[in-house]
């Protein structure tokens, strides 16, 4: 059974918790629906934290795999997507911590080169003017560079709030800290970003 070919309306109407229950009871294809539902949003979270497509792909696979293996331990007192996001964010933060030393050894030029490899990810389909396109690519590069200069914890909060549009309450559950801490981190990160992007604001 290919869930992608299945009636998508039927799967869209089923709540996450119901799909989780079905999966735990042995209907493993139910998890495929959850993957289809969250793959793009989760990709966005991880990619904006790592700025690297290969890492994002690996982490996304790992996050879904880990969620699948621990599905029986999922408690219904939290929403499924916050639980799933939490797995993905924690794994991403772990990877970034491991690479912190390596990243610190990179010069800014090397970082820029790294990020420029990801330019192909940009989906500016509306952009036709070459000059405007170049400006936007420059902006994207600067934006990625600025995000990478933030600490991992601050970047996670910015990604979840500003890019993914999650609430402070959800972010506090995902990052396992209080809402006050989330707001504080967000405020500090915004100030830092404003300084770095002063020419674009």
């Amino acid at each position, binding site marked *: 059974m290919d869930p992608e070919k299945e009636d998508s309306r039927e799967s869209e109407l089923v709540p996450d918790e119901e799909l989780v229950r079905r999966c735990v009871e042995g209907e493993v294809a139910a998890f495929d629906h959850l*993957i289809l539902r969250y793959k793009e949003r989760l990709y966005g979270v991880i990619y904006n934290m790592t700025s690297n497509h290969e890492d994002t792909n690996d982490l996304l696979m790992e996050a879904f*795999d880990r969620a699948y293996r621990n599905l029986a331990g999922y408690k219904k007192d939290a929403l499924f997507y916050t639980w799933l996001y939490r797995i993905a964010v924690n794994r991403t933060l772990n990877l970034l911590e491991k690479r912190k030393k390596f990243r610190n050894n990179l010069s800014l030029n090397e970082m820029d080169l790294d990020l420029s490899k990801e330019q192909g990810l940009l989906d500016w389909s509306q952009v036709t003017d070459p000059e405007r396109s170049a400006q936007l690519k420059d902006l994207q590069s600067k934006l990625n560079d600025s995000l990478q200069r933030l600490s991992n914890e601050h970047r996670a909060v910015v990604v979840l709030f*500003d890019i993914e549009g999650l609430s402070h309450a959800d972010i506090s559950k995902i990052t396992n800290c209080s809402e006050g801490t989330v707001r504080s981190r967000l405020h500090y990160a915004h100030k830092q970003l404003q300084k770095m992007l002063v020419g674009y604001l």
Partner: protein
Amino acid sequence: MNSKQELKLQQLLRLKRHESPGKPYFDHFLAEFHRYQRADLLESPSKWQEWKTNLTNFLFARPVRTFAYSSSFATVVLLAVVGLSPSTAPSDKSVSAPPSSYHYAEATEEALRHVEINPISLSAFDRDFNAPRFVTGERTLAYENTVAF
């Protein structure tokens, strides 16, 4: 913080929502994920896991060997217990028992029990002064054949 700048920053950050690897990547993601899970199942175990498995197989997958180990251990323990226990009185027929004065006296008594002893005449008149004197049987007690007074 300037609210206008704040708003502009949020708009800029929101642009990143449009960064995407493209439709083909997401179209194939589920199949790739299934492949990833299957590959994970076939992934070779770590050195430690391999070593542990080998050791477990070696110790427990062969019942005869396991029995040999336990019986060898029991034998060693038994020998150690016997060797360390306090020594008891040796038996009479023990060859390796160390000689003692008690044993010599007992053996002599046993030997003498079978020897026929002739009565000794203490009378001076019955004595042949030329003949040697014997104490037990034919053993010479003294060789002087004359008595010198």
